[in-house]
């Protein structure tokens, strides 16, 4: 089931920016309003899962609209979008019970993280904490998509995500990269050797054989770059986390089983023109 979003913003630009970054498989924009008053009416009619609400709007501003929505539905999940100069209103919004405030301009992973976090809010701290991992996951998802595009020219969808429990049965080739810092974990890129060869070919414009060591080095560098981008963005948005990466290692074998007993992981499954590529992202003790 898709998560239904109501976008309340007087700027068509922001509407477009949000529409563009939402993965089609997981989200739909069920309505849009150009001012606070429309926002309140649409909320009543559409009952969306999450609302994104601009602060400064004509007729009724975002804060007044959010208060009205929360008065009628205290469980309403609202993300306020704040611009420069809105600092005082941000304070007011927090005291009014707004769960999440995002600064404009926002980056795609920050918006996706905010949406999935607010959507999962259930007035319970436990779920809130569990949801934390999913936020980091969005950074890796975006980095995987972008890196496939930048390095191999591959256009991909956002892929499917599932909780990865127990042992990961490798498709044949796994690149593993340790993460340390305020949180510790690991990221694993898993694919078949055939897909790895095709991907390597797309990255380097030549053909490679199954026994070619260069394929392994290319895949290692691919994971290194995408993880570097993801953690840089995470570190910029979450001060004090200071995530750092260990160098990647590549494992090839038959019936390769991979197990990180101390880690809770999610798996992103991405279908590409080169074949299926899986990315498992997990952190410890969450």
């Amino acid at each position: 089931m898709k998560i239904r979003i109501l976008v309340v913003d007087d700027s068509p630009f922001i509407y477009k920016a949000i529409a563009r970054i939402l993965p089609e498989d997981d989200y739909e924009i069920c309505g849009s309003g150009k001012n606070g008053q429309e926002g309140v009416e649409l909320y009543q009619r559409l009952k969306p899962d999450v609302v994104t609400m601009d602060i400064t709007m004509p007729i009724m501003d975002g804060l007044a609209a959010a208060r009205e929505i929360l008065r009628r539905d205290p469980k309403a999940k609202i993300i306020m979008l704040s611009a420069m100069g809105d600092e005082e209103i941000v304070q007011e919004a927090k005291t009014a019970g707004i769960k999440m405030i995002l600064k404009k301009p926002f980056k795609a992973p920050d918006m996706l993280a905010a949406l999935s976090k607010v959507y999962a809010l259930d007035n319970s701290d436990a779920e809130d904490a569990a949801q934390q991992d999913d936020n980091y996951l969005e950074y890796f998802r975006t980095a995987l998509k972008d890196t496939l595009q930048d390095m191999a020219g591959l256009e991909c969808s956002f892929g499917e995500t599932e909780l990865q429990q127990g042992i990961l049965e490798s498709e044949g080739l796994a690149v593993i990269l340790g993460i340390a810092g305020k949180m510790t974990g690991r990221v694993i890129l898993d694919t078949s050797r055939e897909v790895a060869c095709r991907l390597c070919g797309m990255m380097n414009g030549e053909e490679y054989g199954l026994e070619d060591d260069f394929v392994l080095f290319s895949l290692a560098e691919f994971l290194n770059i995408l993880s570097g981008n993801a953690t840089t963005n995470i570190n910029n948005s979450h001060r004090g986390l200071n995530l750092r990466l260990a160098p990647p290692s590549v494992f090839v074998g038959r019936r390769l089983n991979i197990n990180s007993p101390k880690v809770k992981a999610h798996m992103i499954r991405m279908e590409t023109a080169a074949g299926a590529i899986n990315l498992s992202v997990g952190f410890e003790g969450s």
Partner: protein
Amino acid sequence: MDARVFSPFIDTFFQVLPGLGIKNVERGRLSLKEKLSAARDVTALIGLSGGIRGNIAISMDLAAAKKIASIMMMGRPVETLDDIAQSAIAEMANMLSANAMTIVGQNGVAMQVSPPTLITGEKISCIVSQVKSLNVEIYTEAGIIEINIGLES
């Protein structure tokens, strides 16, 4: 590279294994490799970052892994390397790396370790990391444990 940077990763075996009940710990053959690689049945991989960046791969044959898991579980017989036995091996790797991190810290270097990832399978043909690495065999009553240390200078 100063050979002394490797020693915490070897010393840690002598500090940790006896505490787990694994006896007769001795250092065996030591060799330098062009690439980090480990080709035994069971490997625990741990990433290092911070003041020292690299990977360590603690590798052993299936029989040794089962014996170690059994010793760590108070002598309970281990027929197959199931989930519980695997988490015992991961726990050993975790203790070895955490203790090495402490020794490195005492030497004034802030190193961080990632949680261990366990790799098992048939015909694991290679493990690659593009750095020169030190391979040390540690003899124990449970069999040989091999540690491969690949550090970026």
